[in-house]
């Protein structure tokens, strides 16, 4: 226990200094949330590259939580869906149902190129389409996979902090 204490003391703060907040107007739905965005992540068919990056976006270094975003376990607690990957046939209906389970006002964030335009999987037989073909998308985050900074920036567009 003492060792852990010493390590905490030695390490200090690992979170990087916050970059300036992204400009631009927020949608009314995002503005209503008032700096608190609970996020439910849905993997609609991703290769798991984006998941790794989302993991580090919420890790100590990028610390997306400091801007008011938090991952939650149930869509009922969520304000935004963080969708990764092209929407596969098997995940189309579950994705719609997840969206339906979120209480309004609700937002959708498409994370990664696959979610935006199917990326490398465009035209594949098992793919229904991009996330915007299934759900109304509010924010898109580019990259394959997107860098954690980009994910944090996308989330900050929702929280406004």
């Amino acid at each position, binding site marked *: 226990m003492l060792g852990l204490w010493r390590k905490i003391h030695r390490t200090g703060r690992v979170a990087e200094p916050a970059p300036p907040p992204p400009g631009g107007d927020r949608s009314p739905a995002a503005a209503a949330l008032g700096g608190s965005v609970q996020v439910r992540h849905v993997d609609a068919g991703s290769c798991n590259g984006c998941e790794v990056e989302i993991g580090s976006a919420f890790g100590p270094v990028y610390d997306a939580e400091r801007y008011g975003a938090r991952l939650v376990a149930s*869509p009922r607690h969520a304000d935004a869906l963080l969708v990764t990957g092209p929407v596969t046939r098997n995940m189309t209906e*579950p*994705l719609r*149902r997840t969206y*339906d389970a979120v209480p309004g006002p609700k937002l959708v964030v498409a994370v990664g190129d696959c979610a935006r335009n199917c990326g490398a999987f465009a035209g594949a037989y098992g793919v229904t389409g991009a996330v915007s073909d299934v759900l109304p998308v509010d924010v898109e985050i580019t990259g394959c996979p997107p860098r954690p900074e980009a994910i944090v920036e996308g989330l900050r567009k929702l929280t406004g902090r």
Partner: protein
Amino acid sequence: MNLAATGLGVAGTLGVVSALAGLVVPRGARAAVVGTGTALTGAAGVPAGVAALAGQSFSVTWPGLLPLSGVAFGLDTLGGLFVAVTGGVAIAAGIYGIGYARHGLQARATQAVFPLFVVAMLLVPASASVGTFAVCWELMAATSLLLVLAEHRRRPEVASAGRWYAVMTHLGFVTVLIGLVVFAAHAGGDSFAALRSAHLSGATAAAVFVLTLAGFASKAGILPLHAWLPRAHPEAPSHVSALMSAAMVNLGVYGIVRVGFDLLHGGPRWWWLLVLALGAASAVYGILQAAINNDLKRLLGYSTTENLGLVLVGVGAAGLFAASGQRVLAGVALAAALLHVVNHAAFKTLLFLAAGSVLHGTGTRDLDHLGGLRRSMPVTTGLFGLGALAASALPPGTAFVSEWLLLQALIHGLPAAGVATAVAMPLAVAAVALTAGLAVATFVKAFGVGFLAKPRGTGAAQAHESPPSMLAGMGLAAVACGVLAVLPATVLPGVAAASGFGDPTTGEAVTLRLADVAGTLSPLVLVLALVAGAVITLALVRGLLARRARREARLWDCGAGPMSARMEYTATSFAEPVQRVFDDVVRPETDVDVDHHDESRYLVQAVAYRRRVPDRVERRLYEPVLAAARAWGSAGRSLANGSVHRYLGYGFYTVCGVLILLAVTR
């Protein structure tokens, strides 16, 4: 004749008339006539008991009515309480029976015996001599046995339950009888007045107490003589279960209090430590078995063992305090115990009647196949919920008030106590607390799994609400629960009068304020505060803050689905953590059978999981005795091979033996 005597006389007459009516009235109207008659019998018993509690005692003797001893009846405050409770339960059970008995319970014998059972239970606490007491007690045992066996044609388990009940209730009767006869022999008379004025030596008094305690504890379903209870109560028709569980078992407590406090005038500490220990063990063991049981009525039966255990904790504590001269605390403890008797009668009547309604509406008592009754049986669901709240010792429930009183007695007992008491009190508190905690788990399971969510079986899916007469019987019990929970001060003076130690409270209408020790609780204020809190919250949230309408949505099934009833938590899975924590105590037997595909050992075709939780006390205590009896019987069988010559030979040799013995000794 005063009201007590008149009421009891009317009750007896009405009961006998209803029994006769049960024999002669045609089948179609039988249930209605007998049910009404039984309810009226109970309704006549209640004022009799209340009058006795108010101080109108009476006593009559008819010397010629019974050979040798005659018949003596009398009602004092203690008896009055039990008469009133029995009467109250009988009203609810009688009304309920009108609707319930219409389904296969109209047999002449069953209908005729039902009111007689009530009469016997009303007469037991009114008996004033050993002979009368024994006759009434036996009448009660015999009638209840016949009622337990009412459905033996339909279900084979009933016969086995009846056999257990018959044997154990009569063994209990025998020990009570021996105890009382020894007492009467030393007292030189069999009336209770004679017993009361007798002076027994320490050893005789102890023998009398222990013998009667064994018998009465068995009637009250106390460990280790409880084995009949979880068998007989579920198998009896539900309104009979209610009578047995809410009224009959109380008479065991009555016997202990009558003999221990009244006839023997208290006793040394070890008697009461014994009572306390038995009570605490029964409370914990009973509720533990209830928590892991899936049969709704069996669960309620075990809960009866638990509650009577709590009552005995109070009785034992009262005896301990009385033995060390703390009469105030003894009054609190005994009042708590007797108040719990009243409360238990109210909520257990409600729960057993509601369980009967579930059985009637779904055809099953297995919690694993119930659920989703909220929509099809709304009234039963609401009433069972009320009963479950009352039974789980949470405010605003009835059991909470009596357990609070009990804990007050235990807590104040420590400072002035000896070492034995000092060790006993905290352990008793811990036992009461564990019991209360497990009771919460038990009744959350019974209500949550049994009535909420989706139906787990076809019976529950096709459930239908019970007829109005059954609902009325339950409603009556529910009203009693509500009044007892919110305004316990309405019955506390009566309970205190029955305890014989005087009222432990200052007698305020709304607040229970203990008179000579610190302790204040107001259930009514508590309920009002809760309602106020809920209303303020509702007004603030729904009226002021929330701006968006409520929306109905699909259950969150992780996007897949649909969620079927098979995915729900069942009673077995709900109780699994409790079972696992108390693994060493309950020793469940589980076996898992895995069937593999013929082609490959690695492909599983089906997995069957079975769990059985045997009653461990039964296994350790009863099975050796039964095995010994069986061995003894089979050893004896070689003597009886059916040859008449041989039997004549036995007779001849025995006579010769006796003659030789006489010749030698004379």
